[in-house]
């Protein structure tokens, strides 16, 4: 499909790459090339083979067949990050920075400048400062990594790569954890890198961003190469359809009107907690209530306090009409209130354990018979959950860390639902998962609400808030700035409340 003969020669080319893990093939003769100064987006559903292709392009995996060409010459990339020396750098989604060290120490880690056998701090700091200025990043070389925001950490990774003369930067979902504002800053840096001739491979599930930043797009589906096209020829909808191979018109389920007279199941009055300032709202039976706002606006903090994960400083919480004092997580669970974390790898799942202990951990008391765990009941629960949530694993004995993001999210959802909550709070229900799984999760949430379960959806993705919620609460800096219903639920309104341009006089 790449017919543009005037384009500069590719820096790196993957030619007819196939890859199998044991007997399981994951890539079938995939080809892709990256030219200097272009952003080449790689998109596909979870499990489509993007990660594997990235790892092959950066030498972390060997291809089973096919070849990698660097500057037109066939090359066996050295394993375990050795490809950095050839100018090919992979930036992992989980960043690889030493948290307790400074920016400068991280950038020069492993190749420190020395004079007379001692570290030449001044020279290193000067060099790092030069890079930081170039990229327009307002931090000091002596700042500790642990004090930086995620966006800044990402920039430090990029500075680190650039300082190592990277010609190809492969980035695994760099924007997944960024706010929209941070994403824009990030894109400006990417533009600068492009101008200096760096080729960038960009993996993202956010198709609007792909449209905005990428020059070319390669689409993978089920390990197959589907197409490579200039992004100007594609719309986000076309990309989504090519990824899934089917129409996605029904991404969001049809909205059932909420019963405005339904009983109130949760009433929060003047709640104060860490990062939460005088918050009041209520939730009805069978309602899907969205919580929108910028990252750090206190959405998560509100529900961590309500569910016993953070201390409550003041305020009252009424559950099903009864006052509850401060609860522990277990008490909240027993009252029918469950919180699903946005951080599934650090707070949601035990990555080194199998699916069964993960599934039953939250509702474990339910599986105790005569002081012993009923492993048969656990196994039955797992089989039910796999069917109900369509969790796809090669093998039930696999450790959860090896599942794809989408399947991990489904398992996490199954884990929380195992205690049959009457109120579920789902924080970032679709972070870092593919379009097909998103659709399944949206339909699941709608079905829950139809059954009379109340659902709170906290999300930074406005389309999903707009697509599935009956009512939307917008927060800013620990306060609720607005509550939207009906036609008022649109991006424009939400953004104005979230950014503090508009504010409702509450109560």
């Amino acid at each position: 499909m790449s017919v543009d003969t005037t384009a500069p020669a590719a820096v790196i080319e993957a030619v007819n790459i196939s890859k199998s893990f044991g007997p399981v093939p994951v890539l079938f003769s995939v080809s892709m090339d990256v030219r200097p100064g272009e952003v080449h987006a790689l998109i596909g559903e979870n499990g489509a083979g993007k990660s594997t292709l990235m790892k092959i392009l950066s030498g972390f995996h060997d291809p089973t067949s096919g070849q990698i060409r660097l500057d037109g010459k066939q090359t066996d990339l050295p394993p375990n990050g050795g490809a950095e020396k050839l100018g090919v750098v992979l930036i992992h989604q989980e960043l690889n920075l030493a948290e307790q060290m400074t920016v400068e120490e991280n950038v020069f880690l492993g190749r420190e400048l020395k004079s007379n056998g001692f570290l030449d701090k001044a020279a290193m700091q000067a060099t790092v400062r030069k890079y930081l200025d170039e990229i327009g990043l307002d931090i000091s070389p002596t700042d500790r990594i642990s004090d930086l925001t995620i966006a800044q950490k990402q920039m430090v990774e990029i500075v680190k790569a650039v300082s190592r003369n990277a010609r190809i930067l492969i980035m695994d979902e760099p924007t997944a954890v960024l706010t929209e504002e941070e994403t824009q800053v990030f894109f400006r840096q990417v533009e600068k890198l492009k101008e200096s001739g760096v080729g960038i491979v960009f993996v993202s599930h956010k198709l609007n961003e792909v449209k905005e930043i990428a020059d070319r797009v390669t689409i993978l589906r089920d390990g197959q190469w589907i197409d490579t096209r200039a992004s100007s020829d594609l719309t986000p909808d076309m990309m989504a359809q090519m990824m899934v191979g089917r129409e996605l018109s029904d991404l969001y389920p049809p909205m059932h009107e909420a019963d405005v007279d339904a009983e109130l199941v949760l009433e929060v009055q003047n709640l104060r907690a860490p990062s939460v300032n005088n918050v009041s709202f209520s939730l009805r039976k069978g309602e899907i209530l969205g919580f929108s706002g910028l990252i750090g606006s206190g959405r998560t903090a509100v529900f961590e306090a309500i569910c016993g994960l953070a201390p409550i400083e003041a305020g009252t919480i009424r559950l099903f009409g009864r006052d509850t004092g401060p609860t522990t997580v277990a008490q909240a669970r027993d009252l029918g209130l469950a919180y699903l974390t946005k951080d599934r790898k650090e707070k949601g799942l035990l990555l080194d354990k199998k699916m069964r202990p993960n599934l039953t951990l939250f509702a474990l008391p339910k599986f105790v018979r005569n002081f012993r765990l009923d492993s048969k009941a656990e196994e039955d629960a797992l089989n039910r959950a796999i069917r109900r949530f369509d969790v796809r694993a090669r093998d039930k004995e696999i450790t959860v860390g090896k599942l794809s993001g989408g399947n991990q999210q489904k398992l996490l959802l199954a884990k929380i639902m195992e205690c049959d909550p009457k109120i579920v709070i789902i924080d970032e229900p679709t972070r870092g998962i593919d379009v097909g799984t998103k659709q399944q999760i949206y339909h699941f949430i709608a079905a829950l609400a139809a059954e009379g379960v109340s659902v709170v959806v906290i999300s930074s993705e406005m389309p999903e808030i707009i697509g599935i919620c009956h009512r939307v609460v917008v927060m800013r800096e620990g306060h609720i700035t607005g509550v939207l219903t009906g036609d008022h639920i649109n991006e424009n309104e939400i953004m104005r409340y979230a950014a503090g341009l508009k504010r409702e006089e509450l109560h």
Partner: protein
Amino acid sequence: MMTASDDTAAKPAKRSSIDFKTIGPAVALLILCIIGFLLNPAFVSEGNLTNLLTRSAFIGIIAVGATFVITAGGIDLSVGSMAAAISGVMIIIMNNAVETMGSGVPTVLLGCGLAIVLGIGAGWVNGALTTKGKIEAFIVTLGTMGIYRSLVTYFADGGTLSLNFDIRGTYRPVYYDTFLGLPFPVWVFIAVAICGWLLLNRTAFGRYCTAIGSNEAVARYSAINVDRVKTLTYVIQGLCVSFATIIYVPRLGSASASTGVLWELEAIAAVIIGGTVLKGGYGRIGGTILGALILTTIGNILNFTDVISNYLNGTMQGLIIIVAVFLQRSDWKLGKSK
């Protein structure tokens, strides 16, 4: 650093390495026994095997407790000193009770009851300081280790506390008598091991310990009362120390500053040799028992032979620990194949 090669190794290596972890300690013990037999056939005599089992009971019982603490991501360095302090207090109290209660069974029961209360209390202090006090377990138990050790020295006034001779007669059978051919301490060891195994592998509490050691944040978000479970692991550890002390005191009938020295390291070594992961999240009671037996067997074999000096016991134990952990490295198979 990188997890890149994880899924490559997933299927084939996983099965074999887990099997290896399970049978590894058993195979090692078997090899040690064969070596022992070859060096001196008297090694497998009934008398020696009983002796070996009895000796391993102290470390074994303590190590069962340590398995819980380590599985939940903690560490307890104070167990040796705790055992010494409990022995000391037991002896003092029993000696003082002779006048009022005589030298019969009630006095011994008083001593044992006290030991259990002290063990639970000491474990609770360790647990509360790590969880409520939010101090690293290593530091807390390093501190209590010093405190308990100096207490026993103080009680003994720098010398030795000896149990009243009459009580010794009453108490003696607890260490020296047998039941169905096995010495009493071995029965206690078996009972503690079975209870420990059931608790860790078959109850919600055991699952919680594993979850906390694997990822504390996940445990907290999964409605687990992390502080309480962690504190309970230290209480279980204290209780195990009490049991070990109760069967240890009648053996020598005394306590001094050198009682229980380095028991903490032997207990931790037994746990690690048995395949429990030091950073938590993965515990094996069966392995711990084998680990305790392995450590005792080494000492026993050295006693039986002149090839290696008995003074090198520590060296041999140290080597076994390092080799055991080396063999358990999860990427061992991978490293070899590359």
